[in-house]
């Protein structure tokens, strides 16, 4: 077992999955929002809704393409770097990933083709139905991925046979109580990401005095949706804390920076965890029973500290401790922005309040940062286990993987991803800067399925069109 290779493999997984999650978290929310916009367009007949729809569909296409391309890597990485895990948990994780792939392929790919090329070919109700199906497809994806990850966090419904985890009750795996607090948490995070990106774009257009009608709709809807969803998200965040507290005391203790058992517990707001001396430096702490109240919904509950857990079962305390606080901080800032912005919007003052518009514009990275730090909390907090309490990450790695191989692969991953991410981000930025087209949407005259990102092509440099032979 090569410890350097292990560390590099973990960094590689973290790097590739962090890169990947950026795109789905954006597209899941956007897909749902597009269905709403299409419904509004049909219900009100206002052209602004149609313009908004076509514009965000383009951006959805580019982000969706980047998500698919970076997702392919994920399907392989379990086998390349974590072959012991994939052999042992294959009977459970494999089928779940298959569901994710098959269902998403069927719904997203087929109905996405309708969205791009079907505007003039299918009746309006079917077009609306297609937007809903694309949103359903992305939601299915999120669901099966969350089931998969939740099984690694809180294993259930399995028996051990010949050194493998064999499913004996799929209902326990699919309807694991943990899934039903984590899946909504992720889904809401994605919706909030979509909401803030839309609101930020709207704010940018208002500041630049372009797209008068569309920018106000985006701003109002984005902030309004966030104002409603953000408190619900905090509630689900709290429910997630409860599952961590029940099933993963080591993760909870690291998040809370709690070294000693306490009854009732105090709550560390800010500190610098000093792992070597098992203490917090510069701590700002709320007295008991705040810790028990937050973690266990009780005034008297006992809270586990790291000292009562063997040190070989500790996660790297610092990462979950800070990642969690960054996530919550982003959430609270988003809540304040959404509520205050919606209040101003209700008073019809938002469009004239320049500081607030700038704040809204600059808020678009917050949901992404919150999602990434949230996943860091969940995944790094699960360490040293890959399947919690059953299989250690160190034992899950491909045993013959060398430092050299792991270094080479990590370096080329970083190079290629940096390269395409820069260009991809630049192209999305350029699309958003140009904004929605004022002309009626032109439909390519031949249906070309399955080319999501081609929506973003500029008129001037279009690929040649397709002319059918023999017709």
């Amino acid at each position, binding site marked *: 077992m090569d410890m350097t290779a292990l560390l590099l493999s973990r960094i590689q997984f973290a790097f590739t999955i962090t890169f990947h999650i950026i795109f789905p978290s954006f597209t899941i929310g956007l897909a749902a929002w597009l269905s709403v916009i299409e419904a509004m367009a049909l219900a009100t007949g206002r052209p602004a809704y149609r313009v908004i729809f076509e514009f965000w569909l383009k951006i959805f296409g580019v982000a969706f393409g980047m998500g698919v391309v970076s997702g392919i890597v994920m399907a392989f990485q379990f086998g390349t770097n974590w*072959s012991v895990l994939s*052999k042992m948990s294959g009977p459970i994780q*494999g*089928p779940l990933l298959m569901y994710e792939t*098959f269902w998403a392929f069927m719904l997203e*790919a087929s109905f996405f083709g309708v969205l791009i090329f079907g505007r003039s070919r299918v009746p309006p109700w079917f077009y609306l139905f297609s937007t809903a199906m694309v949103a359903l497809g992305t939601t299915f994806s999120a669901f099966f991925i969350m089931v998969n990850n939740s099984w690694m966090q809180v294993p259930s419904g399995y028996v051990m046979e010949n050194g493998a985890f064999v499913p004996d009750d799929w209902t326990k795996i699919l309807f694991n109580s943990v899934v039903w607090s984590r899946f909504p948490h992720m889904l809401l995070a994605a919706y909030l990401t979509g909401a803030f990106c839309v609101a930020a774009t709207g704010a940018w257009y208002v500041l630049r005095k372009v797209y008068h009608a569309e920018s106000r709709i985006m701003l109002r809807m984005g902030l309004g949706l966030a104002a409603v969803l953000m408190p619900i998200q905090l509630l689900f965040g709290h429910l997630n804390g409860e599952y961590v507290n029940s099933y993963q005391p080591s993760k909870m203790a690291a998040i809370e920076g709690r070294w000693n058992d306490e009854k009732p517990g105090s709550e560390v707001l800010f500190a610098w965890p000093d792992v070597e001396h098992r203490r917090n430096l510069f701590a700002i702490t709320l007295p008991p029973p705040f810790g028990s109240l937050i973690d266990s919904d009780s005034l008297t509950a006992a809270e586990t500290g790291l000292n009562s857990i063997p040190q070989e079962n500790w996660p790297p305390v610092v990462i979950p401790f800070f990642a969690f606080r960054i996530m919550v901080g982003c959430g609270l800032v988003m809540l304040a922005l959404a509520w205050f912005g919606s209040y101003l919007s209700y008073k019809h003052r938002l469009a004239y309040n320049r500081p607030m518009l700038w704040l809204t514009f600059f808020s678009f990275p917050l949901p992404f940062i919150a999602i990434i730090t949230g996943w860091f909390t969940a995944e790094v907090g699960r360490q040293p286990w890959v399947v919690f309490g059953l299989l250690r990450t160190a034992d899950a790695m491909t045993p013959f993987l060398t430092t050299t191989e792991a270094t080479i692969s990590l370096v080329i991953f970083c190079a290629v991803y940096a390269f395409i991410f820069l260009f991809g981000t630049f*192209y999305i930025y350029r699309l958003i800067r140009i904004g929605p087209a004022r002309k009626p949407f032109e439909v390519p005259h031949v249906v070309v399925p399955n*080319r999501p990102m081609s929506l973003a092509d500029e008129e001037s440099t279009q690929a040649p069109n397709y002319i059918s032979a023999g017709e």
Partner: protein
Amino acid sequence: MVMFWVSLLAVSILLYVLLDGLDLGVGLLSGLARGEARRSAMLSAVAPIWDGNETWLVVTAVILWGAFPVVYAALLSAFYLPLIVMLLGLILRGVAFEFRYKTQRLRWIWDVSFVGGSLIATFIQGLTVGALVEGLPFTNGQYSGGAIGWLTPFSVLCGIGLCLGYALLGACWLIRKCEADVRDIARRQIPVLAIGVLAFLVLVFAYALAEHLPILHRWIDRPYLFVFPVTGAFAATVLALSIVKHDDYLPFYMVALIFISAFATLALSFWPYMIPSVITVDQAAAPPSSLNFMFWGCGVIVFPLMLVYTAVSYSVFRGRVGTTSGYGHH
């Protein structure tokens, strides 16, 4: 149930090889094309279908993990570096499709990554199959070949062979889809590529049979297996005739048939092993509780729907690609 998943795996691999093979082949040939107009026409011939084609690779990977986790774990870890490089090649190729039309000045970057990505991905797929045919070093079911155990003269030869094979598929696709000089160039390339591919196949099978006598015995014991090589020979004959006659539609089907017979010959030579002489199909299969769960939720309805979807997207995109810009009408 195990047989059901074996056949789904076979269908997925075959679909991937044929479909992504043709667009990777067009990518290889675009490296030989001169001038923006030709390259652009070649890209248009595969632009709408490439990512649907690539999806079959993911489908193959998840079937392998879900239904045969032992093989998934063994193969993916054994081919660590080549697989990761292949994936990055596919990524570069994929984004090149989309990004090249968004810039004039930097278009050459995306043209290079399109050709380079296609070349890397194709070569490594051939190399992987070659290494499997030759037999990877395994001890007690654990890969023991080190970082480059898959690198042998034979596997490199197979990598080159698959480049020829995919290029042939790509050329046969181009004569169906393109017009004027792009089609004419492809027509001239097909005989050269076809002779190369057939020579390569004969060589490989002769070598494989000579090296692995047990496989040869299986073939001699069951003469009806020779239906596949014979089909391949028949397809090669029809291919030659159709090239002489300047038929633009038959060659693609014939090359596909050659691929299918080569694939079937290979699979039958492996049978009942999934990794030759290491793990059999039955040893590799996931427990029944996994296979049944996948059968009802994915295999029996969703998989056929995916096939239908693929067929529909191809039928929608039939006919030739014009070399002129602007909107034409039916």
